[in-house]
C-alpha cells in the first residue's frame, strides 16, 4: 500500500541525489577521456608527418639510390656556401611538396649557412611540426629561434655528430646507423633489414631552459662516455639537469635546416625521452653527442623504420647495459644497448625480437 503510494508521488530526495552522484561520477570519468582523445588526434597527425618522411625517403632513394646524409651540403668555413652544415631534411623537401622552399635554398647567394636569420631558414614548414609539441621559440633567447622541426635522423647507437674538427674543413664521418654526416647510406647498407632499423624519430622543442629538448651542460670525456654517465646528469622525475643545462646555442629543435648533430640527429644509445649530452670531450652543438629521441607523448616516442613503418616505442624498452662505453662509429659489432640499441644500428647483426 505504502509502496504504490510512493511510486505515484515520484522520486524521493535521496534517490535524486544518488542519480545525480552517479551522473557526476560518469562525467568525471568522461572528461579526461575527451582530453585523451584530443592528444590521440594530435599524436596521429604527428605520426602521419613521420609517415610522409618515410615515403619521402623512399622516393629520394628511388631517384638517388641512397638516403641523404643527416648533415652536409656545400662549402666549408672559408669558402662559405652552406658551410657543409645543411640538414638532410632539406634534401627531402621536394618529396614532401615543398619544392618552393628547396628552390629558395638553391637560389641563395654566396655564404649563407643554414643557421642565418633569413629566409628560408626561418620558415616554419607544417610537415615538420608535431601538433603534440607546442614549443614556439628558443627558451634561452627568442632571437635565436629559426624554423622549428620535430623530426630527426638516426645516427646509430654511438656518438651522433659531425666530429669537432668539422669547421676547418668538412670531414665525412661514418655511423653505425642509417645516417651520418657527409656520408650517404642506402637500403643496401641496412644489412639488419630495413624493418629492424630506425630511420627517423621525434624530437622535442624545448619550452623551458632546463628540460626536454635541451642538452646537459656537463661534457662527457672522450674515453669514458657511456649512456649511463649521461643519464646520471638527468633527473628522470623532474625531467631536468640538476647540474645545469647547455645554453650556448639554441635548443635542439629550433633550427630545422641546421645539419649539426645536435640539431638533426639522435642516437639509440640512451633511453628515449631521456638526457642528451656532449660525448666526445667537445662542448659545442656541432660536436659529437648522445642526443636522445624525445617526444611529448606520454610513455614513449614514435619512430620511423627504414622500411617506412611508423612504430611507437615504449620509453621502458630494453636498453641493455647502459654503462658500456660508446662503440666506435667505424665498427659493426653488436650493440651493447639492448633492443633499442639494436634498432638503431643498420649492420650489426643483432636478432631483434618483438618491440
Amino acid at each position, binding site marked *: 500500500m505504502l509502496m504504490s503510494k510512493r511510486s505515484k508521488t515520484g522520486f524521493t530526495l535521496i534517490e535524486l541525489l*544518488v542519480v545525480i552522484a*552517479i551522473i557526476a561520477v560518469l562525467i568525471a570519468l568522461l572528461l579526461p577521456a575527451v582530453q585523451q582523445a584530443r592528444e590521440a588526434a594530435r599524436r596521429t597527425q604527428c605520426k602521419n608527418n613521420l609517415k610522409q618522411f618515410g615515403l619521402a625517403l623512399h622516393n629520394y632513394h628511388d631517384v638517388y639510390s641512397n638516403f641523404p646524409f643527416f648533415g652536409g651540403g656545400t662549402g666549408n668555413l672559408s669558402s662559405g656556401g652552406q658551410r657543409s652544415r645543411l640538414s638532410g631534411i632539406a634534401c627531402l623537401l621536394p618529396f614532401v611538396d615543398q619544392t618552393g622552399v628547396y628552390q629558395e635554398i638553391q637560389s641563395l647567394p654566396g655564404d649563407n649557412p643554414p643557421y642565418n636569420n633569413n629566409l628560408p631558414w626561418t620558415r616554419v614548414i607544417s610537415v615538420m611540426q608535431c601538433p603534440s609539441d607546442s614549443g614556439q621559440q628558443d627558451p634561452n633567447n627568442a632571437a635565436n629561434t629559426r624554423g622549428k622541426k620535430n623530426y630527426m635522423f638516426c645516427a646509430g647507437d654511438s656518438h651522433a655528430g659531425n666530429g669537432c674538427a668539422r669547421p676547418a674543413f668538412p670531414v665525412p664521418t661514418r655511423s653505425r646507423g642509417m645516417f651520418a654526416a657527409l656520408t650517404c647510406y642506402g637500403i643496401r647498407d641496412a644489412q639488419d633489414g630495413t624493418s629492424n632499423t630506425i630511420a627517423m624519430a621525434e624530437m622535442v622543442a624545448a619550452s623551458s631552459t632546463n628540460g626536454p629538448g635541451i642538452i646537459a651542460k656537463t661534457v662527457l*670525456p672522450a674515453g669514458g662516455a657511456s649512456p649511463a654517465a649521461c643519464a*646520471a646528469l638527468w633527473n628522470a622525475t623532474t625531467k631536468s639537469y640538476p647540474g645545469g643545462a647547455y645554453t650556448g646555442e639554441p635548443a635542439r629543435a629550433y633550427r630545422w635546416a641546421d645539419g649539426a648533430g645536435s640539431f638533426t640527429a639522435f642516437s639509440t644509445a640512451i633511453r628515449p625521452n631521456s638526457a642528451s649530452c656532449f660525448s666526445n670531450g*667537445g*662542448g659545442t652543438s656541432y*660536436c659529437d653527442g648522445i642526443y636522445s629521441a624525445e617526444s611529448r607523448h606520454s610513455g614513449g616516442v614514435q619512430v620511423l623504420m627504414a622500411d617506412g613503418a611508423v612504430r611507437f616505442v615504449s620509453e621502458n624498452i*630494453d636498453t641493455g*647495459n647502459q654503462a658500456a662505453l660508446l662503440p666506435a662509429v667505424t665498427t659493426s659489432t653488436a650493440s651493447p644497448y639492448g633492443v633499442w640499441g639494436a634498432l638503431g644500428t643498420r649492420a650489426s647483426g643483432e636478432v631483434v625480437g618483438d618491440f
Partner: protein
Amino acid sequence: MYRAQAQVTLIVVAVLVIAGCGRQKDRWLAARPSTAPARGEVTFQGKPLEGAIVVFQPTAPGGIGASAVTDVQGKFELRTFPPDVGAVPGRYAVSVMKTAMPSGGTGGADDPSPIQAISLIPEKYALPTMSDLSANIPEEGTEDLVFHLKP
C-alpha cells in the same frame, strides 16, 4: 527496495571503475632484473668530490651497469633504471669523471673553433679499465661504496 537497487548499482559502478583504472605492468618493466639499494661516497685529495659522475660497469658479461652523480658531501645513490634507485647485485669496475669547460669556453658563437672540456681529476679514473676502482654489491644492498681518489 529502491535504496537496495541504488546501492547495488553504485557498488557495480565502483568495481568497474577500480578495475578499469588498474595499471597494467609494461612487459619491458616485467623483464627487468631486481635491484638492491647501493649508496656510497667519493673523495678527492681527502675532500668530498661534488658533481662527479660515477659509473658502475659490470665485470660479468650480460650485466647491467648503474650510475649516479655525487652531491655536495660527495655522496651518491646508484640508479640502474632511472628514476628508480638501486643497482643489480654483482661485481663492478668503477669509473669516476668530472669535467668542466675552460673559462670563457661555453660556446655561443656559430662555428667557433672546437672547445674541449678539461678533466678536473686524473683522466685515468674515467676509464673502467684504468681506474683501478672496483666494488661488489651484495644481494641485500650496501651503503659503504667508498672511493678515495688521488691526484
